């Protein structure tokens, strides 16, 4: 689930004022654990999820797991 949105490079972590970097992030839903490449703040680890990802691929995976 690699996700690169068109505008995410413009976003900064407001707390740390750092640019976001693509990194492996752990996500979890029900019995499923995944490693995903997502943009995050290298300092505070805050992970960036945009609307297209949340309502697209993430929702699809959530529904898939719910039907397992």
């Amino acid at each position, binding site marked *: *689930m690699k996700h690169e949105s068109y*505008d995410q490079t*413009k*976003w*900064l*972590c*407001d*707390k740390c004022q750092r640019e*976001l970097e693509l990194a*492996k*992030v*752990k*996500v*979890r*839903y*029900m019995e*499923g*654990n*995944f*490693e*995903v490449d*997502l943009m*995050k703040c290298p300092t*505070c*680890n*805050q*992970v*960036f*999820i*945009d*609307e297209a990802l*949340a*309502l697209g691929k*993430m*929702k699809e*995976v*959530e*529904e*898939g797991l*719910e*039907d*397992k």
Partner: protein
Amino acid sequence: MNLDKLLETGDRCIHKEPPTCTAQCPVHLEIIDFLSEIEKGNFQNAYKLMEKKMPFHHIIGRICDHPCEAPCERSEAGGSIRISELEKAVLEYGVYKPKKIWPLPKNKGKVAIIGGGLSGLTTAVDLDKKGYIVTIFEKTNQLGGRLWDFVGNSLTEAILQQELKAVTDKKMIIHFEETVDKSKLTELLTEYDAVYLGTANWEAPVEVNPVTFQVSDSALFVGGQLLNKTDSVIFSASSGRRAAISIERYLSKVSLTDSRDREGVFETPLQFDISSKEPLPPIEKSAGIYSQEEAIEEAKRCVKCQCRKCIEGCVHMRQFEMSPDAYIRQINHNERIILGTHYANKMINSCAECGLCKEECFLEISMNDVIHETRESMVERGKMPVSAHDFALKDMAFSNSSHFSLVRKQPSKEESKDLFYYPLISFSDYVKGLYKGTGKTEYLFYPGCQLPASYPDDIKSIYEYLVGHVKGDVGIYLGCCGAPADWAGQQGLMMENIEAIKKVWTEMERPTFILACSSCIRIFEKYLPEIKVESLWDIYVREGLPNKDHIKIPQTLSIHDACGTRENSDLHESVRKIVAKLGYGIEELEYSKEKTKCCGYGGLVYYANREQSNAFVNERIGESEHDLLVYCAMCKDLFVSGGKRTYHLLDLIYPKDDGESATRKMPTLSERHRNRSRVKQILLKEIWCEEPIEDVMEENLTLIIPDDVKKNIEDRYILIEDIQAVLKNAEAKNERFCNPDTGEYLARLRRDNVTFWVKYEKEAESFLIKSVYSHRMEILEGMEIAEEQNETRKL
């Protein structure tokens, strides 16, 4: 869940059962398919169907005594379909050259056929095709027997000759002018492996098994006129074919009786209601045989008998193209899966559980009950998708929390003494009611959760009306009856809720509940039969409407009954009486009262499958030219959202001066929360003169939300309180992203099992909301990959 019982229910469904014409046809011509092909002008395909099922179709197709026609359902609406005339037309327009059949090697045993008439020839040809060595004994010098008597306009001598020649060409052994008597028969039975007796007359009576046509357990089988005792040609042919099956089973040493219950003529369990079909008379022939056009027109009269009553009434079954039998097979499969995807989950959660299917069914099969039981089983096994009902269950929890929940006895005489002064004591029914107070709660007004959410300003008026009109003290009880838990299949939660209601009822010394919501009525009937209930609408009829100047615009309304009240005919009448009393005309919908439809909210389909919910809404609002009148808050909400002018009964009883109530937009999900909270505040303050506890629903941040964002918030089941929480967290801890180019912020906060995201701009002291979305997946921020011991998969 008892899956065997489930499958039995599915087997009872008559949707897949054959029509009476096919069941009454001894050779089971697939008549609906046959007529459908003709209707499409595909005479050749129709011909293939005749060829497949009808022995000697060139002969029988012209002389059949058509037992299929008399029971045709069309006979009740214009006249039976002329099936036999259509068969003749198909033989005229659809004949094609048969494929060459390569004969099987003849090594399966020797069979003697006595009698070269229709039944004997059918047995002979069927067995020859299957590889038996067949010998025919015919007493005359030609085959065909009494078929020769039918030669005339339809069956010409040439056609008969040609068909019989095809038999003689098969290289079976045929002994002409050879009479078989009793002693010859004994001889044949030793010489051959099996014997078929197909003569019209026989010298001695024979005892024949009615299923297998076998004579005791011998190698002798009987068919034709001797067996049928009629001169029907189609029965002769059918008995010949069935005897051939018996002979083959006999010689293969397998059971002669297994699964033969539907051979020959049988009673189909199918029931069909033709009453809604317009009568159409049969198409007359302009010549000896139907022209192609006439045949097509005649075939079009076929109503294709199939029981679809429940499907016709249910947009859910139609959306998923399911009949109950097929639906139940899918549920069975879904329940049995151990590893793999439960593909039927979405379908199971798209039923409104409204119960119309059972009302429509001849056999009272209730898909509602089946689906409800399935949902309970899914919850029990941990297989219910959380997202389907999560919002509704949280909404229920809200209603049963201190934000809304409230139980109070009627204010006592002592507490109300300040109101007992003239003119109030003479003119206010409410004050008079308080003055008569006894301290014993006879009634408990339970308005439910959705009515107060939609009509927050009317709850106090209704309460005051009740105190002023019913005999005995009236208390109030605010909360949710548990309908969402019931619909979601959450039995545990449901029972907990029921116990809580029972506890209040007992503590209040068992008062009668006054219910205003149709879902509450259904839940109380189902789970709390010991509690006596009355509907608010029945009380209005009995005690008279509140003294108000009702707006009387002479207008005709169509009443949409709430599906939860399906079996409550007294309630239906009360609602109609109120509407009539208020001066409105009523035009009943086709589906009303016990046959009403769901608005699209029932069964929580509104949350589980919005597309399906919209289909319910659109179908229902399309059924009425007039404005609709409903008495359930959710029906009103959905119909108005669908663009239909709809009144709630309360709009008429307590008219507002704020414009057109039939088009008034109903509150959003967030406003519904706030309204419930407000109802509690109003009641506490204005009826019980209590200072309400702090308003926990207060919004401290000022939000500016454009309309398109508002719609998304609603469609995505996000509450303003979620947005407030995200913003407060972001502002307090700087936990957010910023976009230097646009000046926008993006912040997130996990609340319970959902992460909410808000994109916003700050404008002075307020927040301009740009977008809001959520996901359920949990992001494990800051957790080192190596720390996690769980199995990790690449997505």
